[in-house]
């Protein structure tokens, strides 16, 4: 039932299956081997409840989110006053801050623009944004192979 996640190694980038295995003098590092860091360990706490979105414009650039930024949403996280969220307002997907004040609910994007009052409107909060990743290169390449 569980998804197979064991994708084969990317042999071009990682030609050696076991680079620590030596034929001559035994590696002094062998007993100290640890798991190499992987960015996913930090970015995705709860893989089965994590979803990805992409910023389409620079509306949230005050907070470092520019066009093409990858947004990581963990639906299991609590959405509170002041949380950055992904929501759907009457069919439109938005990335905003959720602000509650005096029984009124607002979506807030930048210091220049006034917040939108969404109280009573048809709004669906998808979840809390936990990280955003801003690419510094244009390439949309998706690396195949094992993590």
């Amino acid at each position, binding site marked *: *039932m*569980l*998804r197979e996640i064991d*994708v*084969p190694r*990317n042999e071009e980038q990682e030609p050696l299956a076991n680079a620590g295995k030596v034929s001559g003098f035994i590696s002094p590092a062998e007993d100290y081997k640890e798991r190499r860091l992987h960015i996913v360990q930090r970015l995705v706490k709860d893989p*089965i*409840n994590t*979803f*990805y*979105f*992409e*910023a*389409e*414009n620079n*509306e949230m650039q005050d907070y470092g989110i520019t066009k093409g930024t990858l*947004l990581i949403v963990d*639906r*299991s996280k609590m959405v509170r006053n002041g949380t950055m969220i*992904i929501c*759907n307002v*009457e*069919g*439109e*997907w*938005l*990335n905003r801050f959720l602000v509650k004040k005096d029984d009124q609910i607002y979506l807030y994007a930048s210091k220049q623009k006034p917040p939108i009052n969404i109280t009573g409107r*048809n709004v*669906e909060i*998808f979840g809390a944004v936990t990280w955003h990743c801003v690419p510094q290169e244009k390439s*949309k390449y*998706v690396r*195949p*192979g094992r993590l």
Partner: protein
Amino acid sequence: MPEHRTSPVIVLSNNDGCVIARSNEAKALGIKMGTPFFELKEMIIEKKIVVFSSHYALYGDMSERVMNNLARFSPEVEVYSIDECFLKLNGFPDLEKYMTKIRQAIIKNTGIPVSVGAAPTKTLAKLANKLAKKGNGVCLLDTAEKIDLALSDYPVEDVWGIGRQYAAKLITLKVDTAEKFRNMPIEWVNKNMSIVGVRLWRELRGESCLHMKTFFEPKKGMCTSRAFGKLTDDYQELEEATSNYASRLAFKLRREKLCTNVLSVRLLTNMFRKDLPQAFPSITIALDHPINNTPDLIKAALRGLKKIFRKGFKFQKVEVSATGLIPENEVQLNFFKPYNDRNNKLSEVLDNLNGYYGKGTIRLASEGLVKKWDMRRSFLTPDYTNSWDDIIKVK
């Protein structure tokens, strides 16, 4: 998508043939399960019904997300189907509260609405679930009084495991509720409804007969078949489709580490087209050696196809199935014929390349390049959770 929340929504079967899922709004319009799509065309425009093709890659992923969330709530879990799951809740205090917690967690974490029913047996739990669906999403049948009340007006045909035939038989005998069925004498059930019926009868009385299946029994048979996007009498197209299905079958066999002894190929015309001549030729081929490699399986399947193909019939479907499955590591060699395992190595390479670069990157030429016969899926949603190109863009 939230914008469809209040619209009638229907999902079509593979090939956009008929309705296989309906939102409550679509149900309210009187659309029945299995209604052919073409019959609804006018209504769709008139009532602004939202139509989707089946997208099993997406549904499969969402299902796995739901099931994993559920599995966090109990040490014993049986995933029963893409949208049903049993959890053992023995020993948990305050079940009603726990069930509400489960339901809320699933809805919050996945956005998939679920209903939770709990009772002393699986059959009663299914019944409770159905009642939960009609109520507030949670239904606990933990006492004899609650169970009695629930069974008293529960239609017998909706009891889990009572098929259409048994239901008809029971109803003619005026046994139309679950309670009346439960009150039938055991001798009658035993005589008229086989062991399956007896189990259900006992389960309705709170005696657990269907246990949690937490391991998988080895498969006995495997089949790949899908209807084509259009009817075809073209031999080459049939060859390509057969190769494709044989190839997929081979892949599934390898994934489960099984080999097959016997291969069957079957062609089917569309039996609803009364205006066309009908034929359902099939052949079963005993293989010299148990195999699961793609080239040999395709070769065998095509040999079968050649034997059964008949001119003048418009075929809608080809089925390639394997029976007599044995584990890969228990294969016996043929005493009379040598076996060359070259193609096994080839298949391994195939699997590695396809696993790495994506399905269908490398395939046999007989599978064809353009799938003219491929499934029709005109109303497909994006692959939101499985493809980086399809993730939602936000403003």
